């Protein structure tokens, strides 16, 4: 067995402690570096968090706004005809029936072919109130009916009116 003197043993102890202390020193140095780096990153994240928290809009309001718009657009879309729903002749029948229902006399009606659509031109006569009722029915119809042209002539002064109007139905191109 290797015999070592007391002096050698003391030196060995000192060496062992030096090694241990140096090892721990290195360990603490790297860990302190890691700690500092972590602190820096954490500070940065905390700052970002503050910014994000301040900027965030209210998602509930946006969702409500979106739902309202979707609903409104859906209702609006339903006011338009699809191509297969109706044709100018069927529409003529609808308008003619509406005029008759309101007690207005049709003097003449004709179709006018335009580039994108067909318009109907009606020449009618009748009471002012009846005409107003007809216009109300057209304006508040379930579907969009577009009266692009209207003349009213009440110059006779007998409570009747002569009117010429052009009307067409609106379609939605999808």
């Amino acid at each position, binding site marked *: 067995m290797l015999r070592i003197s007391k002096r050698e043993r003391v030196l060995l102890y000192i060496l062992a402690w030096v090694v241990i202390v140096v090892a721990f020193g290195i360990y603490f140095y790297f860990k302190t570096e890691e700690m500092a780096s972590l602190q820096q990153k954490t500070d940065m994240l905390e700052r970002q968090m503050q910014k994000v928290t301040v900027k*965030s809009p209210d998602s509930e309001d946006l969702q409500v706004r*979106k739902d309202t718009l979707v609903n409104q657009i859906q209702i609006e879309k339903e006011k338009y005809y699809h191509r297969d729903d109706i044709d100018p002749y069927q529409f003529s029948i609808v308008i003619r029936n509406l005029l008759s229902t309101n007690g207005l006399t049709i003097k003449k009606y004709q179709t006018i072919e335009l580039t994108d659509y067909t318009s109907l031109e009606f020449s009618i006569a009748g009471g002012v109130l009846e005409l107003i009722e007809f216009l109300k029915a057209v*304006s508040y119809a379930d579907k*969009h*009916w577009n009266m692009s042209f*209207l003349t*009213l002539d009440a110059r006779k002064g007998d409570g009747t009116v002569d009117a010429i109007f052009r009307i067409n139905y609106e379609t939605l191109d999808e």
Partner: protein
Amino acid sequence: MTHCAYTEITDGSYQLYLFEQNQPVGPSDTFSALMMARPDFDIKSVELPPVSDQDIPNLLKFKLRSIYPGNPDETAFDYTILSRKNKKYAVLFITEKRIIEQYQSLSGEKPLFLPFTLIKPLIKRCERENCVFIFFHTSWIELMLIQDSILISSFVINRHSSFKVNFRKLKTLLPDSYENYSLVCVCPKEEESSLEQNIKANLNPESSYSMVVMEELLKNIDRKTDFLFSEKQKRRSIPNKLFMYLYPALFLILTVLIFNKSINQKKTYYSQLENRLKAFESQTLDMITLEKEVKTLEDEWIQFQKRAPHNLFFMLSELSRIMEERAVITYFVIEKDSFQFEAIGQNPLDLMEKFKRNDNFQNIKLLQSIPVQGTNKERFKVIGSVKNK
């Protein structure tokens, strides 16, 4: 450990008895520790020089040759350490190896002890005074002389049926000034009162004495008791020198652990922050998408509103409301947004002011106004357009 047994020699062989019953029992019976017979042992007290705990057994083995006449190869001993004012003393329990082997065989490897083991905790109580412990057993009596918490000497005598005989023998073993010593008698509960009377009768009135019941001492026997001839216990002791290295090592390890824990806590917090930020980012991304969707829907809605036809009924109603009953429309034409009308009524200029204030119309102009003769009315023409929605 309350079930302890003791031994008596009957017909040249050992017999086990339980303390509680004083009845012979077999080796297989339940008991926790065995009190060996004091007459089988020599007890010596040795002052120890300043040596490490590891070196004590060898030192005692060496000293044994000078204080015990037996053959070293056939001798077994154990010791317990007593300390007083930086001095250490070893109380040696010496016997023959074959006796110990017999006890170990009898006890079935259960812990062994001697009366001194029982009275050792009491020694500290009489630190300020010198004590004499007299341990009364059924067939023998042990006398232990304690000075300054150190066992000075221990003797054993065979017990005689007469107390006076026993006391006379004991007195020969006691120092001359024994009456200055505090006397502590340890005996079974059943003998306590009779022994106390005898002692009282034989001692000077100034002498102090106290009685200790053996059963009470036996109750104190537990795992921490300093049992004898137990190798396991001796191995368990940690050399003091080792603590010199253990404490700094422990300190370093604890420091590392605390440091690591602190870093881990920081890491956990960082990770939590990171996750929260990611969640926020994801939420923000959803918000941006939602905002875009809302914007698209708003644009679509505006397009729909622009495309929707004018409400002619509403427009004519508004015209009527503006003109009230002061004017009557005689002619009206509208094409797309632009309209023109002819009316008969009073003060058309005042009407123009009203048109300007109305949000539904724009670019309203009075084209012509001709007074109607014979009336205060005017025939006037107006042009304008409907405001875009």
